[in-house]
């Protein structure tokens, strides 16, 4: 067993403390088109406790990413609330960071400057300390030596590492990931899933909970402790699946197939 696998196995998969860090309560989202209200999310509720890796899945276009943006404070719900430790989230918070599917990097900035950009909202951090933090995050994300490289010169996997470093530098309690591996080829994604999980969920990481949106059921079963399945639009929660398997998980085990089946059953 490699050391990465040992780290994964020793990672706290679930906490004894079930108090939610994030609670989504009866969230509805409507988009306005001319004079019509188009319902996107309908009464969506979920919770994320410490040590939990939560995945949200559902049909394409059902509003998964919109829900993640509401949790991140990037989008306002039409009704309902999202709370961080019981306090309503109404705008982006330093405790919550996000990794995007298409990386969302600034092409005119180097890897280091892109990561530094993540700390722009932290005016309380002196520049020198900020740079030191960024270099540490770059190192953790496996980008050592790439500080001066521009995103356009990097592969998809490396671009996503910048996105991850930019999130890590905030030392967030909650990490939101919107289809973080879907723009990568299978081999790179396979490798990054293992590495990123051990980087995010380990005792020395400040991240206490991860909420990921994904449509890749195999990826979801490999990574998650709990899965929330949404219906087609307007999306509501059709069910949840607890994944209770030791880590690292064998994709060939009967339990793995069973959990995949349970998710597919809810999706269909």
């Amino acid at each position, binding site marked *: 067993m*490699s*050391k*990465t696998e040992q780290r994964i196995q020793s990672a706290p998969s679930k906490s004894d403390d079930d108090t939610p860090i994030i609670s989504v309560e009866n969230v509805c989202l409507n988009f306005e088109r001319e004079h019509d209200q188009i319902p996107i999310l309908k009464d969506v509720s979920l919770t994320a406790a410490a040590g939990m890796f939560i995945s949200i899945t559902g049909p394409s276009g059902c509003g998964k990413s919109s829900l993640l943006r509401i949790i991140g404070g990037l989008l306002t719900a039409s009704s309902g609330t999202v709370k961080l430790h019981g306090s309503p989230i109404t705008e982006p918070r330093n405790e919550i960071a996000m990794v995007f599917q298409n990386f969302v990097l600034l092409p005119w900035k180097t890897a280091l400057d892109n990561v530094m950009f993540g700390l722009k909202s932290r005016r309380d951090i002196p520049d020198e300390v900020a740079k030191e933090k960024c270099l540490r995050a770059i190192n953790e994300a496996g980008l050592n*030596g*790439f*500080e*001066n*490289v*521009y995103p356009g*010169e*990097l*592969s998809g*996997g*490396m671009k996503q590492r910048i996105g991850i470093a930019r999130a890590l530098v905030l030392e967030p309690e909650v990490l939101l990931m919107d289809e973080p591996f879907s723009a*990568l*080829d*299978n*081999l*790179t*994604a*396979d*490798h*990054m899933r*293992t590495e990123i999980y051990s980087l995010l969920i380990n005792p020395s990481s400040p991240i206490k909970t991860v909420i990921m949106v994904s449509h890749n059921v195999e990826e979801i079963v490999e990574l998650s402790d709990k899965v929330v399945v949404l219906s087609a639009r307007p999306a509501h929660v059709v069910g949840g699946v607890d994944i209770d398997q030791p880590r690292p998980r064998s*994709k060939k085990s009967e339990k793995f197939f069973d959990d995949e089946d349970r998710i597919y059953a809810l999706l269909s």
Partner: protein
Amino acid sequence: MTKTEYTRFYHERNRREMPLKNESAAVMLPNVRTGEILGLVETTRRLGSPLDLSRLAIELGAKINTLLPILDAAEMLGLLKVEGGVVGLTEFGIKFQNATKNKLRLVRDQLAKIEPFNTALALSAHRHTFSSDEVAETLSEKGVQWHQEPEVNQAVVRGLLIDWAIHAGLLQYIATDKFRKGSTQM
């Protein structure tokens, strides 16, 4: 899969820009990314080495012509062996997979012997800084090219140098397309 079939697939693959021209005895790294090699080694071990190439391709949902250059690069670096359609990790490949950090530093010596890294290191020996275009040009003069279009060829060389040589610690990236020799420390 026989070696002949393997070779045929190797030359017929259509997705990547593969070594197009090689008029010297230079060994050229196919245009593959470090993430693909890391993923290949990890997947091969997870599925149980040795295993059939066809099974590996099915498991990865990869077309054989996509997979072959990645296998070829992994073989070149001594990480695995492909023989008679069977893929197996070498002892070095197992050591590589078990390493926790800076795995790509382990292939530093192998990379230094192959192109475009060998030429880049030769340039770095007598130049404080150099560009990837200069490496591509020097290689073209020796008859070593990944693509017939000079601009595409330069992009391939730049991509290989950035992705592999920096990870392996062979080169440092100073500023836009400016490299210099990497630290000698592992």
